[in-house]
């Protein structure tokens, strides 16, 4: 840090005065990057190396640990794992598609700025501010069989008592509903920003040319929202892979594994079964998935941020 301060503290004038620049001056940018790089190395790059290594390290009951693929064969042979992967796919599709469609509909309906739309936007955006565990606490009551909020009001329509989180055929859907409720407003904000960036003249011109509202939506608005859509899609996918707090609090992956997700499985192996080998192998699989995702989307991500800024 001292060296950094000293180098950074060197007056910039040096280069303009045409004195000989000290050899170290070229290091300045790297020193400025060093603090960030240090933390990234320790908690982003090194963990990837480490987790690959420990996923390939086999610890038997006897003898020294050796290299091997046993962790992976144990992982893929574990029915809990394959179920978790399947659930993650369902959870991703179930949160992303309705979440984005609803967000887009909200944004389209609330795109004009009036006092009413402002209030409605706030109502939809509020869930994104609270922790997912807080949402889980609220939905623990909403989904409570019989006395809970949902059953209480559904009873008016003659719907019988339902065990939303305890019924294997409903539990994942209930978890998905919480995520959609929580994230929809966040995605709506992006669509609102995207909609605001569409030039009015384009829509007006189309209107004069006789394009109806549906045509304008599909021919102008949606194509121009392309970058926003790609960007939100990436965030939503990341969220689907990383947001499992409500699973931990509400269902613990149950009933009978129906709400177990990839990250929950990792958490379970590490925290409850102390099976580091299998947890590492599962982490490598997730990192692999995210890495492919990043290669596909880094461009659209960067463009997306540019676009928003």
């Amino acid at each position: 840090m001292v060296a950094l301060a000293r180098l950074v503290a060197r007056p910039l004038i040096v280069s303009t005065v045409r004195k000989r620049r000290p050899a170290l001056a070229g290091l300045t940018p790297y020193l400025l990057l060093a603090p960030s790089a240090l933390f990234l190395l320790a908690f982003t790059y090194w963990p990837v190396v480490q987790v690959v290594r420990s996923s390939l390290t086999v610890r038997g009951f006897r003898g020294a640990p050796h290299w091997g693929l046993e962790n992976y064969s144990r992982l893929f042979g574990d029915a809990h794992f394959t179920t978790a992967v399947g659930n993650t796919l369902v959870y991703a599709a179930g949160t992303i598609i309705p979440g984005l469609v609803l967000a887009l509909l909200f944004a389209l309906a609330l795109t004009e700025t009036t006092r009413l739309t402002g209030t409605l936007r706030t109502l939809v955006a509020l869930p994104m501010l609270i922790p997912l565990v807080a949402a889980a606490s609220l939905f623990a009551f909403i989904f409570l069989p019989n006395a809970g909020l949902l059953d209480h009001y559904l009873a008016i329509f003659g719907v019988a008592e339902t065990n939303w989180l305890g019924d294997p055929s409903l539990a994942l859907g209930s978890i998905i509903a919480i995520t959609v409720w929580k994230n929809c407003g966040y995605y709506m904000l992006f669509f609102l920003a995207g909609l605001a960036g569409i030039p009015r003249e384009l829509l007006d011109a189309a209107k004069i040319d006789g394009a109806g509202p549906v045509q304008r939506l599909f021919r102008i608005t949606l194509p121009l929202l392309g970058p926003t859509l790609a960007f939100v899609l990436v965030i939503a996918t990341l969220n689907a892979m990383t947001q499992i707090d409500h699973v931990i609090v509400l269902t613990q992956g149950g009933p009978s594994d129906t709400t177990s997700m990839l990250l929950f499985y990792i958490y379970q192996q590490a925290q409850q079964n102390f099976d580091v080998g299998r947890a590492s192998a599962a982490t490598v699989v997730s990192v692999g998935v995210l890495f492919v995702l990043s290669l596909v989307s880094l461009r659209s991500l960067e463009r997306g941020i540019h676009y928003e800024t």
Partner: protein
Amino acid sequence: MRRDTPLFALALASAAALLWFIPFAWMAVASIREAGAGAADLASLWPSGPFGWGNFADAWSSGHFPLWYLNTVLVCGGILAIQCVTVSLAGYAFARMRFPGKTILFALFLLQLILVPPILIVPNLSTLVALHLYDTLPGIMAPYCASAFGVFLMRQTFRTIPRDYEEAAVIDGATRLQIIVHVLLPLSRPGLAAFAIVSITTHWNEFLWPLMATSSPSNQVLTVGLATFTAGAEAGSEWGVIAAGTFLVAAPLLAAFVLFQRRFVSSFTLSGIK
């Protein structure tokens, strides 16, 4: 003013937005409804008495809210303070300097947007143990001290500032560090504010990592505390107390959002990623 949004769309959106608000409405009503109002009223959204602060008192005394608030504020504040240093320096390097490997390094930095900390909990946990940071507040903060999003945001912010200011400072003999601290950062307040809002919101709401990185109750943050608290109160079906506890956890950010709505919204749309 022309009205482009059809009335039925607006009506539909209003109904949906009210539906969206129901969990909050229940939280508000149930938290101030005194216990003993009857099980049938538990789910009622209609604000019916008797009202009182009993649930809040119960929540406050059965949880460790002062400690959880303190830990959460320390974690969020600590992360933000360190982030401000790391992202300003790196943001400056990427915005204003030329050096070999710049493009590759920038791409490597951005990789953190995808390789998010929750995915890396297992290896990060062993790193934490090796560094003797397990079960400490700095341990919770450590993985977040560098922020790819922050670097990106500061780079963009610095780029919008005309170089004239810096050149004037250079003529006056200012050093790079002085330029960053005294010239660029004061001009970057909107960018910094946006970053602060996103950073604080993210870490205030973070659950999985603080849960895994700590074991003793004295190091629990609000989210972890709420989870244990809810589990306890749920067993006793004390839903009013749960509503009050949830309110205590969520209220600061909700209030900040309602008060500084415009700031929040622009920060979030600027960000997208934490």
